[in-house]
């Protein structure tokens, strides 16, 4: 019945409006990312997935040669062999599966309730390695209704620019390792609880090498009445050789609720997030602290499009004033 390859193409897009302090990001109208997703079964057990994004550039048309209008990026390209539900082996470029948000929504703005991602998993951010190039073994076991899922990976880890994965190869001789385990128990349908470990050596030209260890956890109630997401991550950096160690903590908690009956198209939400960077951490120089609240509402104008509006209140340091912003987004899938 299924013909191979069976290519399925889908896309995501968003148009945004922002009114905020210039230091926090773009203002006025902006094009969001234009994202194409490709999924193709090559046989009953072999699948290929790809995610391409086009992101408008702030410096479009400047420089010599002139910068292009958009950055094109292969966000994900994965080939996976499915032996069974217990064992699937894949190779490629992933969104690092040590963080729930990163692998639940990817670049699909329409999929997430809010306009913004939590800053700890911001694309282009440095706190969590967003991309991972390598190999992954994953699967799930029923475990008497606990439905335990696992993902274990080996890859290149962070690149010379630590916000990027090592796409063109590892920049040191130490690969990155990760392990992610979570449960989706039958008795509490909608609940997912899990934790992750990530180890890597960070090498940046002209800077000392660090060993990085990330311990992360999440608890998510995925139903919409309510929807609750909590994630925490501790990123520890230790100078190679064990001289100095620093620890950085980030977490967020998000609560949303799909209103009942006649108001079911409306979904108000609130998120609090916190990032605490150790001032002595040379690997995270320039990564700002954060205490932020986001409050907003999502309105689903169709099954495949939504309008969201939210206000954000952010404080970067105790002695600095708060910055406020108001945002509007129209997002869709097609």
């Amino acid at each position: 019945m299924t013909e191979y390859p069976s290519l399925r193409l889908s896309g995501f897009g968003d148009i945004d409006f922002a009114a905020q302090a210039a230091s926090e990001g773009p203002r006025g109208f902006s094009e969001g990312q234009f994202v194409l997703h490709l999924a193709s079964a090559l046989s009953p057990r072999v699948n290929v997935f790809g995610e391409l994004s086009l992101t408008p550039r702030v410096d479009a048309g400047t420089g010599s040669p002139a910068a292009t209008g958009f950055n094109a990026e292969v966000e994900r390209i994965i080939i996976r062999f499915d032996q069974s539900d217990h064992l699937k082996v894949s190779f490629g470029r992933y969104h690092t599966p040590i963080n729930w948000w990163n692998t639940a929504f990817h670049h699909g703005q329409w999929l997430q309730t809010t306009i913004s991602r939590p800053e700890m998993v911001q694309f282009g951010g440095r706190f969590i390695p967003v991309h991972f190039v390598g190999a992954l073994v994953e699967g799930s076991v029923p475990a008497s209704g606990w439905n335990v899922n696992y993902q274990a990976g080996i890859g290149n880890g962070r690149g010379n620019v630590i916000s990027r994965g090592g796409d063109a190869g590892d920049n040191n001789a130490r690969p990155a390792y990760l392990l992610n385990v979570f449960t989706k128990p039958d008795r509490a349908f909608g609940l997912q609880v899990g934790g992750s470990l990530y180890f890597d050596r960070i090498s940046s030209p002209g800077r000392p090498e660090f060993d990085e260890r990330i311990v992360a956890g999440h608890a998510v109630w995925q139903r919409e009445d309510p929807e609750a997401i909590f994630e925490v991550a501790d990123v520890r950096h230790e100078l190679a050789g064990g001289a100095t160690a620093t620890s950085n903590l980030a977490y967020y908690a998000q609560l949303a609720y799909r209103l009942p009956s006649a108001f079911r198209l409306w979904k108000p939400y609130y998120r609090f997030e916190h990032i605490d960077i150790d001032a002595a951490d040379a690997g995270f120089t320039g990564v700002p602290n954060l205490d932020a609240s986001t409050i907003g509402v999502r309105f689903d104008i169709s099954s495949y499009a939504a309008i969201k509006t939210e206000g954000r209140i952010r404080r970067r340091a105790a002695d600095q004033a708060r910055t406020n912003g108001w945002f509007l987004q129209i997002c869709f899938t097609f």
Partner: protein
Amino acid sequence: MPCRGYPERRRLLLRLMVCAALIRFTAAASAQAPSGIAVVVHPDVPVDNLTVSELRRLVLGDREFWPAGIRVTLLIRAPVARERDVVLKDLCQMTEAQFRQHWIGKVFRADTALAPKIVYSTAMAIDLVNRTPGAITFVDASQLTRGLKVVRIDGRLPTDKGYALP
């Protein structure tokens, strides 16, 4: 003589009217009585019974293989069909919009490359489930035909009391 025939004809007419009324009443009653939604699988699927949780995981794509290593192909009725409504509401506890978003997200997350296949009639569901290895679908129990492999849910068939998909 013709006068004697009238009461007989009247009695016959009365009997016919009573029969017609009974047939009509029975038909109306059977149309109103909800029959369960049967879970039908391809004859080669080596499963006779599923728990509600296992069935939910199959419908939501969290389980992709049958025990013998056969890939699951989910055939689900198009929106508005009663079979779909019952599966979404009673089994997945989702609205139509939530179910669509779930599957768009599922494919986008690279959990699976194959979304459920839509079937537009009971006849189409029955035809495809018998022709597609690993297929599973949902059929109104009153429309089951001979030779279909119906799976029990928590040990119950659609005619049993307490069946999960009423």
